[in-house]
């Protein structure tokens, strides 16, 4: 682990010791797994702290650990980039099944808006305080959340409910 990465991890660890679940370094990538409770504070700390400066919001996505085993069933994964230090970091916030809620980070980065809507659409994870929590890719009346591991690839019969056009019923 490089010195800069070490420093980032140490700073986050000391500031949020009770929130850290795991820190791992693999293939040159640092991952900090955290509880979901203070996710906004942790990301604000990473964004605003003088010698961290992870200012550029890169990506936010969901992961369903159903078949893999994790701290909880779902995780929301944040990828951040610090242009000053040319450094990347990955934060994983774990969200338990049955209470799929986490705080929105739109207050920190406006760019998180659509990404959070996508995670809501695909995984059913609701983001508290999100300004516009609607589905984004699927139709509003779509049932289920397609990227969940227990959602079948062929769908749940939703598509079959559409009228099948045959020679007889064609207008």
């Amino acid at each position, binding site marked *: 682990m490089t010195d800069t990465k070490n420093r980032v991890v140490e700073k986050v660890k000391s500031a949020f010791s009770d929130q850290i679940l795991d820190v791992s370094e*693999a*293939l040159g*990538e640092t*991952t900090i797994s955290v509880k979901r409770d203070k996710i906004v504070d942790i990301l604000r700390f990473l964004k605003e702290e003088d010698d961290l400066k992870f*200012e*550029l*919001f*890169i*990506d936010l*996505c969901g*992961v*369903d650990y159903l*078949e*893999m085993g994790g701290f909880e069933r779902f995780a929301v*994964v944040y*990828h951040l*980039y610090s*242009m000053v230090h*040319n450094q*990347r970091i*990955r934060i994983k916030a774990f969200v338990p099944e049955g209470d799929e809620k986490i705080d929105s980070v739109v207050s920190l*980065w*406006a*760019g*998180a*808006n*659509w*990404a959070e809507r996508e995670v809501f659409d*695909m995984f059913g994870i*609701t983001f508290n305080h999100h300004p516009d*929590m*609607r*589905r*984004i*890719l*699927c*139709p*509003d*009346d779509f049932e289920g959340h*397609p*990227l969940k591991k227990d*959602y079948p*690839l062929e769908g749940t019969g939703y598509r079959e409910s559409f009228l099948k056009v045959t020679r007889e019923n064609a207008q």
Partner: protein
Amino acid sequence: MEKSFDALVDEEQFDFEYTPHEEKMLLNFGPSHPATHGTLRLVMELDGEVITKVMPELGYLHHGFEKLGEHRTYNQVVTITDRMNYVSPLNNNFSYILAVEKLFGIEVTERAKYFRILLAELSRISDHLVCIGTQGVDLGAFTPFLYLWKERENIYQMFEIISGTRLTVSYARIGGVPRDRENIPPAFFQKLNAFLATFEDTLDEVERLLTRNKIWLNRTKDVGVISKEDVFQYGLTGPVARASGVEWDIRQAEPYSLYDTVDFEIPVGEVGDVYDRYLVRMEEMRQSTHIIKQALEKMPEGEMNVDPDTKVMLPKKDDVYNTIEGLIHQFEIIMTNRGPRTGKGEAYVPTESPNGELSYYIISNGGNGPYRFRVRPPSFYNYQILPKILEGRLLSDTVAVLSSLNIIAGELDR
């Protein structure tokens, strides 16, 4: 929690009450308007010609590529990546395969790395040609479009020579490229040299037509201005960020393949308007030709793909047809219930695609395909700023702004 689709025309969000002094109009721009180049719907509230509110709607093209990718083997996913950005599919191919190779711990040969750089830069040029060409058409300039389209055709012919296809090339495999174990067809290099000899002249001609053209200046200057702060707020990357003065290119900041061995400059804008984005793209095409020339010079002879004994690359066809080991090996790679596998882990590789940061985040659980397949598409993030830079502008500016962000609906919806 979920609002119905009718919420878009809800009175809370749009004021339709008629007053003698003020009449607002609701306009659906897209999803199949020619300037949206795909399927993006903009619900607009207009006060005369002035846009007072914009709400972008995605999802009309949603194919579920991420779900599909989680049910395919690593090599099969390459064909999906083509379709996410059909204007520069090779950048998508290589970006994805770099993430897979990182996961597998495979280092491809130097020849393959330079060849990938060469193809990725050609693809970048073709993407910018489409962007600027269609932007010209959208704003009423047809001649530059024809000049640029001719060059794009040349590039597509090169792709056809190496891969057999023009648009969805799927030209990446774990450990190298799908074909040409020994040689790249000589016709490819002939075409490439002819292209490099004349391409910059075409750019000069287009610049003569557009850069100081009064209509072009009026339509693009100070339109859709994006500030430096907004770049960080909205996660904007690529030419859009650079036009706003952020000097950041992943090819130099975090070099992949062998980008650290080639010299090129990062063009940067000052104002961050549509005109700056046009200038940045024009200069990027010039820089790309420099990179291609260097890659051609530096590309060593030798093997293109990694050794077949690593059991991730296909064996030679001679071996497949003449030895039982070769045949079994071929099946082990191709059959969907077999395929190359790797251990548990996750990899994220950032690459500089024509539109910005294109990254693939792959989580493996030891299977023969991704357990979680996430793509970070640049267009998805670049388009969030649309309401902010459109509101208060004229309706006709919409077309200029839309095309300057280079709309790729496949990346918006995946």
